[in-house]
């Protein structure tokens, strides 16, 4: 879902850029207060995992592929502001080194795949968790739903930006983006649940870290 340069108009580039700069600054401020010793290797591993996992495009219907975003996994394990930091570092490296995602569109990509996906997943996970209870199984169900929804929400944000930019009418681009990402989100849900369950069974202490 990395937006290349040329898809967004100046107003959208500036608006998403300002929000993302503010979001990253706030994320660093909050992390500065809450980051503990155990968070540090976890953040490094999650960034490495997300980069590698994003290279693994899996086929979905109709000659289309998708890859995980990863923000939901970070939001569940470490909290939404940690997701903003990690997704920003990954997207920054992908844009600068791997020419994936536009330089000017970086703010929009951080907004969609960091802020929207991270906070969307975090709050949906918490709401689902309070509805389903605290068992391992309900954590995994909540994680699947939160991860799936995070992809859908990010794709809706992306579609709205494309429509505001005049690139494609909202009634055309919104159903198309939401439709294909509702499928890609299933992959996000499965990967998120798989990683959370491995962490639960091997290092359950890491699920009890302070959320950032």
């Amino acid at each position, binding site marked *: *879902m990395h937006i290349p340069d040329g898809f967004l108009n100046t107003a959208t580039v500036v608006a998403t850029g300002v929000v993302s700069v503010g979001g990253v600054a706030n994320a660093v401020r909050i992390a500065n207060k809450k*980051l503990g010793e155990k968070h*540090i290797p976890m953040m490094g591993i999650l960034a490495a995992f997300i980069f*590698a996992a994003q290279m693994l495009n899996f086929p979905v219907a109709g000659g289309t592929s998708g890859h995980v975003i990863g923000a939901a996994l970070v939001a569940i394990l470490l909290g939404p502001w940690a997701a903003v930091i990690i997704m920003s570092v990954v997207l920054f490296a992908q844009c600068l080194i791997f020419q994936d995602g536009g330089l000017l569109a970086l703010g929009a990509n951080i907004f969609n795949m960091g802020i929207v996906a991270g906070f969307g997943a975090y709050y949906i996970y918490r709401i689902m968790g309070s509805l389903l209870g605290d068992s391992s199984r309900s954590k995994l169900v909540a994680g699947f739903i939160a991860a799936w929804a995070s992809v859908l929400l990010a794709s809706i944000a992306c579609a709205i930006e494309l429509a505001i930019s005049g*690139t494609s009418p909202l009634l055309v681009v919104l159903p198309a983006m939401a439709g294909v990402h509702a499928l890609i989100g299933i992959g996000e849900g499965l990967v998120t649940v798989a990683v959370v369950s491995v962490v639960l069974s091997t290092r359950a202490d890491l699920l009890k870290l302070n959320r950032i």
Partner: protein
Amino acid sequence: MSNKKWWLVALVFCLVLATISPLASSSPDGLEKVAEDKGFIGFAGESPFEIVADYAFPGIENEAVATILAGWLGTLLLFTITYGLARLIKSRREGVATR
């Protein structure tokens, strides 16, 4: 398994994921496919510079090898940068607190 070993196993697992990246689907992703179908893919601009463009390490003829090298580079780079950044963010607070 000791904690240190757990982190090492996790990092090796990430490198294994990067190693199987040549098997990934080469179909357009969700946004690219929508852009093709809805006729705005042509708006996409080229990057003003290329470093490891399209996840292929430059100067390597074999496509799979170029992709694997790009994957290893990115995985190790992201681990190092994020680990270092997290340590930096944490250490600045401690520096203030001890004063």
